[in-house]
């Protein structure tokens, strides 16, 4: 099965809530949603983002929008106002997730 980077079949937007990053991942076409739902698991996202996310990853499904929503706990170096990072609010983490490869 061919491997693709998520950016080829999905788009995303990310932000923050305290020290928790929120990444919404959306299939570019409805037929790609099942592959996202099957392969982009909370465990894989935790593994993928392990350098940035020190806590757990929680996943929610929105099949009506062909989307998944991820909460990455302890992922922002203390959160928006505390963090020393350039991206203190996790605004670019959407694209970090899109670096992941899956099979379709």
């Amino acid at each position, binding site marked *: 099965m061919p491997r693709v980077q998520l950016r080829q079949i999905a788009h995303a*937007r990310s932000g923050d809530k305290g020290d928790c990053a929120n990444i919404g991942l959306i299939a570019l076409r409805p037929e790609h949603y099942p592959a996202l739902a099957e392969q982009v698991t909370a465990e894989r996202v935790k593994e993928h983002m392990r350098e940035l996310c020190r806590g757990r990853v929680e996943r*929610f499904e929105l099949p*009506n*929008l062909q*989307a998944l929503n991820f909460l990455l706990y302890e992922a922002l170096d203390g959160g928006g106002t*505390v963090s020393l990072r350039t991206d203190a609010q996790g605004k670019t983490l959407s694209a*970090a997730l899109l670096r992941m490869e899956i099979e379709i």
Partner: protein
Amino acid sequence: MIRIANAQGFWGDSLEAPLEQLRGGPIDYLTLDYLAEVTMSILQKQYARDPRAGYARDFPQMIERGAKEIVERNVKVVANAGGVNPETCGEAVAAALNRAGFAGRMKIGVVTGDNILNRLDDLLARGIELRNMDTGEALETVRSRVRSANVYLGAFPIAEALDRGAQIVVTGRCSDVALSLGPSIHEFGWKRDDWDLLAAGVVGGHVIECGAQATGGNCQVDWETMPDLAGIGYPILEAEPDGRFAITKHPGTGGRVTVAGVTEQLVYEIGDPRAYITPDVIADFTTIQLQQAGQDRVQFWGIQGRRSTDFYKVSISYSGGFKASGTMTYGWPDAYKKAKMADQILRTRLERLGLKFEAIHSEYVGANACHGDFLSGEPPRDLAEVTLRIGVRGSDPVAIERFTRELAPLALNGPPVVTYPSGGKPKVEEVVAYWPALIPKTEVGAAVTVREA
């Protein structure tokens, strides 16, 4: 149908968007969201120095510039510009209308009751613990360092101000979506237990609350061909009494309203989509149905909600120490290597000085600052330049201040091909940390006043 236009996604958003929303076509309501979490503590600090301050000063200025259109087109304006001093903000709005030559032409409503800073000790004494929602800790641990404490109020006080004839409504802290849900409640007579209707209002409010993020701004799909981002239109919510609504923008403006862009905004910072908790209703984002309904128009229906909780969320800010960050930029060749060496030298010097920090963070802008080493991979050797950005955080302001003196010397006594920003050493900032908590709704009373301008 009513048209609710948003023109401010946060304090610092476009100063022109409110005027463009007023002038670009028909609207019934203009909503402006000024209050990020960090804003409240800044405003509280200003208020402590000056009891006539503590609100978003941009707002009365915007009212003065837009007064003619607001009056002539009979547009109602709802803004959380009140910060920690909504009454004074309301007076400033009246003064702005007066300066614009429209004194005595409308009523101004002010919503208060969100600010519980002066009630904290009383609440704690009565056993309302205000434990941290994330960590479970009791507020006592940071009580002496608390800077601000505000309850997220709901939409019904805004609706009440509109019911009583206010044309401009100023609030302090309220849920972001309340700014647009309040008008729908007022116009359509939605009741407190119309869960599905309220949820529809919440979803519509969520789509427009971040301004142009709903109309093609910050959108990953087809961003290169996005029309006229320089003249991007801000979102307009066309709400129907039965809960259906459409998202659109004024004709002739830039950007795009598409299912892809609107869906990015739908999943933005929502947490559990089955339980998007607001003061008025819990909205279920997994029930949202939407489709493209013509150019720059997305139609929504089918949204369901359920009874909200017995608590309001409280946002408490407290002083969490100090921090500073500074940069040094290294040019080709081997820019990344040089920046890394500079980081090592700087860290060695900080250690030899015996300075203690809670955290030191280095990143290499141009190589790995956004996504970290692991995901970014080894940077190419021929990068044109790399900026070392290093920051420290800790409880001792003297140590942080000393750190800020250690960057510039690297220009003469570190690796070569280096430049650094003019304007002196980095600034020491106070860290404002957040303490999210819950408070029983029975402990909070919103008050609404409506007066002639």
